Every structure is written in structure tokens, then in C-alpha cells.
């Protein structure tokens, strides 16, 4: 379908076009009237953002410099920030979150890409396999995680993974009850739960790669690995870069996995993430201002990362 941006293109047929009268001085009111539909739809979206995204964000920043006690709110400068940084769980929470992000990059980022390549190679049952891969995304995250918690990660030998390990004569694991296994186990569950969406995006990108490139590569004697490295990855570079950024931003906000899989902090705080620490301060420790300060720190870190990433990507392009 052709997309036109010519003003007036959607006017009723038959309406006479006014004779050209030189450059028009269109007033703001006229501009608004001319694009009423667009503005009206825009207002809805903007209002939603203002009310549910921007206002809470600004309010959070303001609250991070305030302290509410006995119903009185006072300005306290950077006190909430120094207090939250002094929280004994502050640095472990960042460490856990960064570790999860790193593992998610290794596993959660690479796996969907290779699954997409694999799916793209299949000649038969493509649609069926896509549905299978996408199915976990349709499961509510809480349900998916409860499945992992009670079925797969049961620390007894009745647990799915432990039963498999036992059948293979391998040592079983305590999964979420082991500080060493907590994060890898959360990444596995998270990857399984979320990869469907990424796989579909990669598949779409893969299908846009001209077949001639692969044919040429094959004629040059390139094997499958060379074709992936020299054709697939360069051709999907933009999508890969975008999803990497989105994935890092999303995984840094790790929350529901520790909340459900590890009942919060996990063994010896091994599952405490920054977002979970915000939740603890805000909803359990009567410290909404401290929670707001930690939220702002996270916002700054993620915004800084995104800006740096986009800048670097732009330079490379």
C-alpha cells in the first residue's frame, strides 16, 4: 500500500482544489484544524505517557530529594542518596543485577538469535515450530515462573531438572537454594519465558536478507558458520544492536524472577536485584523516598548506558 504524506490527499474526491495563491500563511489554529485527526490521536497517546510515565518519573525525582515524616514533607538534599548507598544491600544488589545482565547477554541474547537461524533453515513445519517457540511468551510470566519454581527447580530429586541430572548420573543441584546457581537458574527461566518475541523479530530480519548473498557465499565455498558470520550477522546488525540495548535495559530491571523464583532475596541475598531493593524500601521498609532515590540512580545509569550505546552505534554506522 502506498503511503502518502501529501497534505489534503485524503480529502473527499470531487472537492475543487483551490487555485494556487503563492506561499500560504497558515495559522496554528489552521494547522491544528487541518490535522485534527492526527492531533486527537496524538493527544491520547501523549496524555497516557504524561500521566502514567512522565509524571511518575518526575514525581520520583522530586521525592528522591524529600523526606516524609509524620505527614510533613521536607527537602533533604542528597540525604536519601547517601542513605540508600549506605544500605548494606546496595552494592550486592548492583553486583547481582549486573551479573544477571551479563549472563542474560551470553544466554538470553545469543540463544534466540541461533534459534531464529535454525528455524529459518527448516523447510517443513515452520509455522508449527514458530508457535512452539512463541508459546511461552503467551504464558503469564508469573505462571511460567511458578512452573519453574515448583516443577523444574524443586531442590529434591523429584524436581524435573534434578530427575534428568540423576538419570544421567550427574550430581543434582539445589537450584534456587544455592547462591552459585541462583542467577544462572533465573537466566534460564527468563530466557525460556521471553525468547519467543526476540526469535520472531530475528526471523523477520533474517527473511529480509537477499538469498543471492547466501548463494554467492556458497559459491565461494563458505560453510554454514562462515555464512552466519559474513552474511547473517552483518545483514541483521541493526536489529541485533537494537535488541542488545533493549535487552540490557530490560534485564537491568530484573524483578519478577527473584520475587517468584527466590521468594525475594534468595539464599543469603544472592537474588536481591536493584529493582527488588527498590520494592523492599518502598513497600516494606516505610521508605518511599529512599526507594525513589534508588529508582533515580537506576534511571541515570540506564539512560547513560543507552545514550553511550546509541552514540557508539551511530559512530560505527
Amino acid at each position, binding site marked *: 500500500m502506498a503511503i502518502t504524506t501529501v497534505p489534503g490527499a485524503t480529502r473527499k474526491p470531487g472537492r475543487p482544489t483551490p487555485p494556487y495563491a503563492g506561499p500560504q500563511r497558515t495559522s496554528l489554529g489552521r494547522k491544528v484544524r487541518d490535522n485534527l485527526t492526527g492531533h*486527537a490521536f496524538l493527544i491520547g497517546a501523549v496524555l497516557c505517557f504524561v500521566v502514567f510515565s512522565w509524571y511518575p518519573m518526575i514525581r520520583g525525582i522530586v521525592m528522591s530529594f524529600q523526606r516524609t515524616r509524620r505527614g510533613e514533607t521536607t527537602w533533604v538534599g542528597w540525604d536519601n542518596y547517601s542513605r540508600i548507598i*549506605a544500605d548494606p544491600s546496595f552494592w550486592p544488589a548492583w553486583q547481582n543485577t549486573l551479573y544477571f545482565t551479563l549472563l542474560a547477554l551470553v544466554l538470553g541474547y545469543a540463544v534466540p538469535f541461533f534459534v531464529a537461524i535454525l528455524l529459518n533453515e527448516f523447510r517443513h513445519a515452520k509455522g508449527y515450530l514458530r508457535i512452539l517457540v512463541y508459546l511461552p511468551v503467551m504464558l503469564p510470566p508469573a505462571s511460567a515462573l511458578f512452573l519453574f519454581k515448583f516443577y523444574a527447580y524443586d531442590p529434591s530429586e523429584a524436581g524435573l531438572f534434578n530427575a534428568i541430572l540423576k538419570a544421567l548420573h550427574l550430581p543434582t543441584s539445589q537450584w534456587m537454594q544455592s547462591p552459585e546457581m541462583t542467577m544462572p537458574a533465573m537466566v534460564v527461566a527468563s530466557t525460556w519465558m521471553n525468547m519467543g518475541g526476540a526469535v520472531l523479530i530475528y526471523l523477520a530480519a533474517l527473511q529480509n536478507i537477499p538469498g543471492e548473498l547466501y548463494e554467492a557465499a556458497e559459491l565461494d565455498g563458505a560453510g554454514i558458520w562462515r555464512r552466519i558470520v559474513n552474511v547473517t550477522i552483518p545483514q541483521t546488525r541493526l536489529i541485533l544492536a537494537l535488541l542488545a540495548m533493549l535487552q540490557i535495559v530490560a534485564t537491568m530491571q530484573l524483578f519478577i524472577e527473584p520475587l517468584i523464583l527466590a521468594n525475594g532475596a534468595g539464599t543469603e541475598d544472592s537474588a536481591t536485584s536493584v529493582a527488588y531493593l527498590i520494592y523492599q524500601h518502598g513497600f516494606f521498609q516505610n521508605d518511599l523516598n529512599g526507594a525513589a532515590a534508588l529508582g533515580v540512580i537506576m534511571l541515570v545509569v540506564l539512560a547513560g548506558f543507552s545514550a553511550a550505546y546509541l552514540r557508539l552505534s551511530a559512530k560505527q554506522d
Partner: protein
Amino acid sequence: MSVPQYRKAAALALVAGLGFSLTACSTKSDDKDTNAGGKVTITVDCQPVGAQKELLKNWNDDVAEFQRQNPDIIIKSVSVGEQCNNPPDFTARLAGGTVTDVFYGYMTDLQQVLDSGQAMDISQYVNKDTIPTWDSVDPALKEVFTDGGKLYAVPVKNYSMGLVYNKVLFQQAGLDVNNPPKTWAEVRAAAKKIAGLGNGIAGYSEYSAGNTGGWHFTSLLYSQGGQVLSADGKKADFNNAAGKQVLQNLKDMRYGDNSMGARQLLQWGDLLTNAGAGKVGMFIGAPDSTQAIVSQFQGKFQDWAMSPLPGQDGPAKGTLGGGEGYFFKKDLSPEQVKAGLKWIAYQKLTPGKGQFDYVRAKPQNYPVGLPQPLLFANGSEAQKQELELRKANANVDTANFALFEATPVPIKGEPRNAQAVYAVLDAAMSGVLTNPNANIDALLKTAEEKVNQLLAAES
């Protein structure tokens, strides 16, 4: 209508609809205290949820009867979940100013409620005229809801912890149900025998997540004669022999005897689910935990009994106590406050009515005869009436709670900044319950440093 016009109309309708929705969200109801008929209206939360059929019917019947007796008062009931106070929801309601006129809270919530600025000083309204049994209410409970000489809530329930045990599993394991463990060494021996039944049964079960681990650590520490914070509340005071003993007892049961089950990181509902399924021999809890096991987790009353909290070598030196009450939202009119107090007096503090209507509760799947709450002071007229009614209508075997009732253990309250401290102590509990090589000294030292940092930052 042509397509572009239709689009414009749809867009305008969308914007108008959104605008109306936002306006509706931001507009507060103005029917504050009186309606056209001159009636006083109050909203009250903690109405039982639909799944709690009998409790909900009782509540609604109480509202109907109260309104019949007081035709000038309208009670609008609000349900806020089975637990009435799920901390995140409660915090959100407080922060958002959406608590009801008369709202439920835990004893440990006083500071948070005061900080939110949502509570009203009700000292001038609470007396024998508004609550006829007020003079009989245990002064210690009133004190918990008092700050700076001002009363902010009316206590309606209290509890203290003891050892809750499954009689069926005791019998199966060859243990004497009338002679439950009195010391932690006896608990360990009994747990070992019960776990020996197999089938995934834990002899003794304990919390270690969601701040409940710290909560129970506190009770276990009190049983050893310890305290979580120093007397001035400025330093942690659990990294000592008493604290080490608490963790050592658990470690011995968990890894020495393997009598606590494989699944750890349990919190409130997890443990009670297992208990309801007959997979837990013993745990520490309040008498009303048996009610939760039955009403929420499909257990049976006759399976459960209770004894005092064990001590290390003899009787426990202390146990953790707590409770709940109703706060009043700021800016209520005097008529609304009086109406709210009248409702609480009727539903919560009158022997034979509301929560003490044992005649009504007797045929229901709701326990009568549990030793708590003990809202009324020892020897008071209200207490005599309440205990007589309780005894006359008991539908649970009171002998199951006789030991707990006959052997009172000194009750201690929760520490300052309880939830933050509990969150830290969860790590010590989870450490000792999930790591066979856990170093108790290191766990307690780390927790002590963290709590001290927290307290320093707070001050």
C-alpha cells in the same frame, strides 16, 4: 459518515473518553460524612473476601444488624484481601491516600501510618461512652497504638507465638501428643522421628524468605532470652551466644538430621500450604495459624495442637507478640469517628457479638476455643464474659491448646524498624537452611554489620 469524518469522530471520542477517565480518576468523592438523609457514612476495610464464605456472611450480617440498631449510620464495607494487610498493598493505599475511613493495620504499622500523615489522633473520642468495654481492654495493647501520649488505633486482635504441632504425625511417629517438646533439644529429637516417616514430611519447618525468616528468628531469639536490638534501639544485639544457638539449632535439624525437608526459602503461605497438606510436623506460630491452615489451606482443626514456645534448656525466656487494630483516617468528622468507634465496639470488642459471637461461629468451620485473642485485661468483666462464652461454645478441642494457655511465656514486641531488620535476618536464616557449610559466626557478623548500618543511616 465518510471515513475521514468517522475517523475524526472516533479520535475525538477517544480523547473525550480518556479525559473523562482521567477526571474520574482524579476526582474524590465528596460524600464525606453525611448524605441527604442526615446519615453518617463510614467506609471500613478488612471485609472478608468472597472465598471466605462464612466469614463474609457473618460480616455482612453484623453490618445489617448494626445498621438496624443505628439507623443513622451507614457502613460501607471494603475488602482488601484475605490477609487484610498485605504490606505492599497497604503501603500503596497509605501513600495514595486511598485507605478507608476506618482502616486495618498491624501493631508494627504505627510508625508508617504516622509518617504517611493519614492517621487521626482519636484520644479524645475513645472512652467508655463510645466503646463500652474500653476500660477492660488490656492497657498494654492500647500502649502499642499510642505515640507521644496520643492514641491512633483501637486494638482488635493480639497473638503470641508457641509451638504448633500436628497430632496425627506425632502419633504416627510414636510421639506422645500430650507431652510435646519443651526444649529445642526435644524439638530436634521429635523432628527427626517425624521426618523419618518419609513421604516428604518435614519434622520441623521454618521460614527464611520474604522477611518472615527474620520475623521468626526474632521469636526464636526471644525464646533464648535474647533481643534483636540493644535497649536503646541503636545497635544490633543478636550476634551473641543466643543468636548463635538459634541458628545452630536450625542447622542441626536441617543438615545434621535432615529433618526440615528439602524445600527452603519458605514464606508464610508456603509453610502453611505444606502444613495443610500434612507435610509439617512442627512449626512456631500463633494460635490463629491453625485457623489459616483450615480456612485457607484445607487442613483440619482436630489435627493440630499447641504448646508453649520451647526454650534451650527449660521454658522459653520470651516469645514474640503482635496484633492488629483499626486506625482512623485524618480529616474525619467527629460524627464519623464516633460512628467508626461504635462499629468497632460492636463488631470487635463486645463479648457475644461480631468476632466474639461464638454461638454463631460454633457450627461454622471457624474455630471457637482458641486461647487467643486476649484483648481484655486479666480479671476484667469483659474477659470473664468472653471466656465463659468461649468455653461454652468451643468447637475445637480446647485440650489441644491447654498446654499453651496454661504455660504463659513472657511476651515481647517487635523491634524498631522491624521489616528492614527482618529483611537482613532473612539472609542469616536462608544461609543456615540452604548451605550445609554455612558459617554461623560469619552469617551473624554480616547481619549485625548490616543492621548497624541500617540503624545508623536511619538516625
